[in-house]
């Protein structure tokens, strides 16, 4: 602290605590103490309060003791002379501030005032080239949102980030694609600067949370005016236009420790240190910093999140509560740079330095911005210049290994017409052939690298990529074209990214792009032949056919006791890593998170238990677990980090399991929605009868064979059944139960055990007559 900041923060905390007390007592008077309080779609109550105190605030009345605790944290402001120490007191005042802010938000939720409906006051929400994927799960989604906002004069901001989204981001947070988050509070010098700051953060894959205002004007206004796409998909989440909404990023931070760190409410110190050591977040204060902002920042500092301000404020440079400096001041106009845009760049660079954010960023030399934050962009038809594939289109992508002498590194060839010649909105054939040479390159890695084409191309601003192989679908925005983007840049991206991410196996990359219909069709047939060969090979790749499994401990940065063991017939629980990926990853980085585990010392073929796997687990789980079965969910199942696509859980009455998808927000027969189940299953725990897994594990031949396989599934989230229908039907066919999928209940016909049992009996589900699980 500095005395100036301590004084402001403590003063701010007194004011906000008083306001919260008034807000709460008024609410209790009007609505009664038993009125329920909840943030939507999170299993962690009011998460900041739950993290600090362990108190599960569920009613207005539950808030009263929290308010008392907040008040007990308030010290007097430091004296002018002969002052008493203030650092500990200021940080406590910061915690009191967070309690007060969360209580205010809780009451606003009760009153239907959250998520905030921001008056547009004449701001025209741009529906320009890129727009619309959005956020708050209960709100209008997609492009319709902007239109809806325009028509009702309000723009609905995001409430607390829901648990599903948090888990969806989990793997990106751990694998470094999303290296941290920035909580931006206030308003930038100009719209131009606001956009630049956000673009610079997006380019680095940093999640951006927007809060607060300066004299009524918020960076949210600035970005909307400039047509910047806000939403989960672009990593840019607007929370609220007042400082109180800054509680949401901190709730998010708390929940990341609860979700992935295996902590529970009340383990305040552990939760805060988890954030300091593992969640690379910082606060960027734009514009004047008032008392409440200082008070809130003091709360953020308890998480180890430093504060960087673009105004002149006292700096706090000694370290300790945060890893590097606590408070850094960079008055915007004093930053060196030829213009405001360069100053914005310097500011963002300093933020990253102060937090020690590890950025993994490939320099991709294309005329538009590049970064994983752009992966989620959606390009609407009227904003696109041209598309390739999709309905009626012809595309393919094919990556193959080639001899070194046949590959000229960095060469990109285009055969056929380029964007300049297309009619606006045209659908054009596209073939992409990538040739890779490398001493350590293997045929097996072709498909691993080929699957990355999607992420890689999608990272360009104003370029949308969906699908893979011969169902790829690409759109290029008019704006990107106007800034100079041409088809050869697809090749530039692939060249740069393959080198950056796979340097250990890739020595040379060349790319050929075809837009000539006949040529594309001709080469697509060649590629299809290869796809088919690969499919057969993958189908033959069984647990029995290999002598090595791979570990995945990537998530240990978040869940220190979690170890995934990945076999050919079981994809990692995040769905993102299969056996081949792990094998390639091991080649890339022999000391990395994917280590080979020789299949040695078979203990039980039926349960899939090996001595070598057990030993590996013991050594790499901090000696927490010593047994693991790969084929059973009832006996020593795989631990779970928190990134799982699905949770499987025993329903004893039904003698089978339910499988819940993380996209499913509805109730399940277990009496818990996904987010609550996830809280039980995650955090590196081993819970017999309960297991996190990838969705494609459902159709594996090694799907819980010990318990009887797919026949044990009695309930499944409807969205899983729909999105994987053909694969599931094929699997049912394979096990000789062709009608099974229709005998599996879902949320449409059973959300209680009673309903489930009635349904299963009516359809005669096989699990009912199978051997008892317990």
């Amino acid at each position, binding site marked *: 602290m500095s005395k100036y900041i301590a004084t402001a923060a403590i003063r701010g905390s007194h004011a906000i605590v008083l306001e919260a007390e008034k807000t709460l007592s008024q609410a209790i008077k009007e609505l009664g103490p038993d009125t329920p309080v909840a943030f939507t779609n999170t299993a962690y109550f009011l998460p900041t309060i739950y993290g600090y105190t362990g108190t599960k605030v569920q009613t207005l009345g539950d808030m009263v003791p929290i308010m008392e605790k907040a008040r007990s944290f308030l010290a007097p402001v430091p004296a002018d002379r002969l002052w*008493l*120490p203030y650092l*500990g007191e200021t940080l406590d005042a910061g*915690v009191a501030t967070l309690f007060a802010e969360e209580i205010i938000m809780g009451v606003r939720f009760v009153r239907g005032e959250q998520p905030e409906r921001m008056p547009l006051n004449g701001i025209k929400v741009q529906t320009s080239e890129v727009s619309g994927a959005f956020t708050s799960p209960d709100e209008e989604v997609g492009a319709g949102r902007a239109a809806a906002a325009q028509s009702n004069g309000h723009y609905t901001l995001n409430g607390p980030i829901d648990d599903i989204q948090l888990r969806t981001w989990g793997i990106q947070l751990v694998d470094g694609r999303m290296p941290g988050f920035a909580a931006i509070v206030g308003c930038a010098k100009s719209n131009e600067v606001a956009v630049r700051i956000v673009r610079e953060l997006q380019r680095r894959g940093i999640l951006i949370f927007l809060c607060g205002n300066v004299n009524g004007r918020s960076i949210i206004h600035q970005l909307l005016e400039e047509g910047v796409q806000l939403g989960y998909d672009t990593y840019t989440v607007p929370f609220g236009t007042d400082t109180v909404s800054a509680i949401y990023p901190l709730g998010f931070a708390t929940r990341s420790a609860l979700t992935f760190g295996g902590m529970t409410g009340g383990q305040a110190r552990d939760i805060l240190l988890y954030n300091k050591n593992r969640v690379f977040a910082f606060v960027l204060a734009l514009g004047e910093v008032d008392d409440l902002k200082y008070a809130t920042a003091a709360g953020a500092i308890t998480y180890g999140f430093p504060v960087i301000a673009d105004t002149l*404020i006292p700096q706090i440079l000694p*370290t300790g509560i945060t890893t590097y400096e606590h408070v850094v001041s960079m008055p915007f106009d004093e930053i060196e740079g030829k213009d405001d845009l360069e100053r914005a760049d310097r500011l963002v660079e300093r933020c990253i330095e102060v937090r020690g954010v590890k950025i993994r960023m490939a320099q991709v030399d294309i005329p538009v911005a590049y970064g994983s934050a752009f992966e989620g962009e959606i390009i609407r038809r009227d904003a696109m210049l041209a598309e390739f594939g999709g309905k009626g289109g012809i595309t393919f992508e094919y990556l193959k290994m080639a001899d070194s002498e046949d590959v000229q590194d960095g060469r990109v060839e285009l055969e056929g017409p380029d964007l300049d010649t297309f009619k606006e909105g045209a659908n054009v054939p596209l073939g992409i052939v990538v040739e890779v040479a490398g001493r350590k390159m293997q045929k097996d890695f072709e498909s691993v690298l080929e699957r990355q084409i999607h992420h890689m191309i999608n990272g360009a601003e104003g370029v949308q990529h969906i699908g893979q192989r011969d169902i790829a679908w690409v759109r290029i925005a008019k704006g990107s074209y106007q800034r100079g983007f041409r088809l050869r840049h697809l090749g530039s991206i692939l060249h740069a990214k393959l080198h950056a991410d796979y340097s250990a196996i890739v020595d040379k990359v060349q790319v050929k792009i075809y837009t000539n219909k006949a040529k594309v069709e001709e080469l697509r047939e060649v590629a299809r032949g290869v796809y088919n060969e690969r499919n057969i090979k993958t189908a033959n790749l069984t647990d029995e056919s290999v002598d090595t499994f791979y570990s995945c401990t990537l998530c240990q940065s978040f869940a220190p006791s979690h170890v995934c063991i990945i076999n050919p017939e079981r994809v990692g629980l995040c769905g993102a890593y299969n056996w081949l990926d792990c094998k390639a990853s091991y080649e890339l980085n022999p000391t990395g998170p994917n280590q080979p585990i020789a299949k040695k010392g078979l203990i039980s073929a039926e349960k899939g238990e090996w001595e070598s796997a057990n030993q590996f687990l013991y050594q790499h789980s901090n000696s927490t677990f010593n047994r693991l079965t790969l084929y059973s969910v009832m006996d020593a199942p795989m631990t779970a980090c928190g990134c799982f696509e699905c949770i499987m859980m025993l329903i004893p009455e039904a003698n089978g399991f339910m499988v819940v998808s993380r996209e499913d927000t509805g109730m399940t027969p277990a009496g818990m929605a996904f987010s609550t189940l996830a809280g039980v299953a995650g955090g590196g725990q081993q819970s017999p009868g309960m297991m996190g897994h990838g969705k494609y594990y459902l159709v594996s031949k090694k799907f819980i064979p010990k318990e009887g396989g797919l026949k044990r599934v009695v309930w499944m989230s409807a969205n899983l059944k729909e999105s994987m229908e053909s694969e599931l039907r094929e699997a049912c066919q394979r096990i000789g139960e062709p009608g099974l999928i229709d005998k599996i209940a879902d949320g449409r016909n059973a959300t209680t055990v009673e309903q489930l049992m009635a349904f299963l009996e009516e359809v005669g589900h096989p699990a009912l007559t199978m051997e008892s699980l317990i």
Partner: protein
Amino acid sequence: MTQRKRQAPQSIDPAAIEMLELAEAEGFSTAFSRAKAMAPCPIGVDGLCCRMCFMGPCRFVPKRGQSIEDVTGVCGATAATIVARNFARMVAAGASAHSDHGRDMAFVLLAAAKGEARGFSIRDEGKLRKVAHLMGIEDKGRPVAEVAQEVAEKALSNFGQQTGEITYASRAPKRRQELWRRLNLVPRGIDREIVETLHRTGMGTDQDPEHILHHTLRASMTDGWGGSMLATDISDILFGTPKPRTSQANLGVLKADQVNLVIHGHDPTLSEQITEAIREPELIQYAMSKGAKGINLAGICCTSNEVLMRQGVPSAGNMLHQELAILTGAVEAMVVDVQCTMEALVGAAAHFHTKVITTSPKAKIEGATHIEMEPHNAYQVARLIVRTAIDNYPNRPDSVHIPSQFSDLVAGFSHEYLRYMQGGTYRGSFRPLNDAIMSGRIRGAAGVVGCNNPRVTQDRGIMRLIQEYIKNDVLVVVTGCGAIAAGKHGYLVPEMMEQCGKGLREVCEAVGIPPVLHVGSCVDNSRILTVLTEMVEEGGLGDDISDLPAVGICPEWMNEKALTIATYFVASGAYVLFGVGSPVSGSPKVVELMTKGWEELVGGKLEFEPDIDKILQKSLAHIDAKRRALKLVTYDPNQYGQSGDRRLAGITA
């Protein structure tokens, strides 16, 4: 003023100088004048006098042409044996003082737990439960009184136990504990090691200086990791764990128009009750009925530190101020308990109306009023004492002489608060301090502790070191009479950060602390052990206390207790430097054993160095050497300093 006095002033404290001039003018004797009149015993000063049996006493004085190694006593004992024995006995005596203090506190806690001590309660339940946890006592779901009783009993058992280990040895860093066990240095029981020291050092037992000194290390630990640590913990449980508060120090805190009651000594038991009693409206009324405007309580020495840290009672000064306070003529009663209370008080008081009141069953002074305090009657005794002082107010002479000097201060940095201030309730730790040391913002840490000694200019060495340390970015912690010196001279205020080097200044401003931290009385040196341990455990500064870039200095030592403190810090791995002179200078062999020998054995050493400038050089060199050994960045005084409010000056004005 004579020419000679100007060359070697008796004190640098203006209040003391003023009172000494008055004493000289009036012909009052003081420790300062008596020290001048009586040269130190030339044989005893080097530790070379043996009085262990009546075949002597033997004086180890080499004859012409002899070296000290050629001299033996009647029994054949060498100078090294005798010097080691004398040192060991001083350490044992110091340990017995602090340990007895700890024992008394444990008895008060026991009485309080049993409800047998009116006026005493458990003021800090959190600390009680923490201490219970440290002692391996299950406290969950148990009532406070029951836990307190078991804690008291466990504490008392530490004194009488014959085998095993004293409880708090297990609080040291792991590496240190292993070393102690390997070297057989963990005390088995507090009393046992002290008694064994007396046995070993008597006529005809332990006659190997190295062996004697080895046991001396063990015996000293009964103080730091035994009695003192228990005294600190139990005082916190009974009277509250200190946290920062403001107060003042120096003779100027005495008030011309109020009843002045001065408490002096070391044990907070009675003085805590007196702080309660003076707030009683009935007694205040009584004082006013005698013509006083109120009752003013002030402290001297470590009793002062105890009530300063917990109650904000101002300090009238350090040890050498005890007579000077009386010479103001404004003190109605000086209440003493144990340790460092000079017999001369009675003589000084005889010039005035002042009553010297002894209160401990262990300590009487001929000519003083004795009002004995036991835990069960402490509050009544406190009231009686306050009444006695009030009754004496009308006897005060018409003219009093109270120097105007006093300084503001901030005191009360318990190790619990030190932890809290570096992160608050949820993030408190020693990480920021360790970080600051590792980055070179703080060069290292120095404990400046201990006594006053009229053989050297009062406060001069203490203050010179403190000034130089903070200028050189060394964070200073102070205890005992050193702490009061720092307070008197205005160094315990946060504004003092302006006198620091740039890096230390940044840290002070970040936390809001003075660069000199008052951590308590002399038993509270145990708090420094806890702090050092926490720094080690926080990580980044090595595995043991001996790895830390830290030093302990006692520039003006006089009491045996100081030697015990020095020795237990050495046993814990610290480099300790003492000013004034050496009690072991008679034997080069013992000097070698306590420096090179101990450093090899336990990583710490004890040096006596009368030259303050050399202490400064040696201590900074030690800090820098430890930094190098830890491979920390080289300290650079100009590297830091961009933090803080100064940047805003002129904008916010």
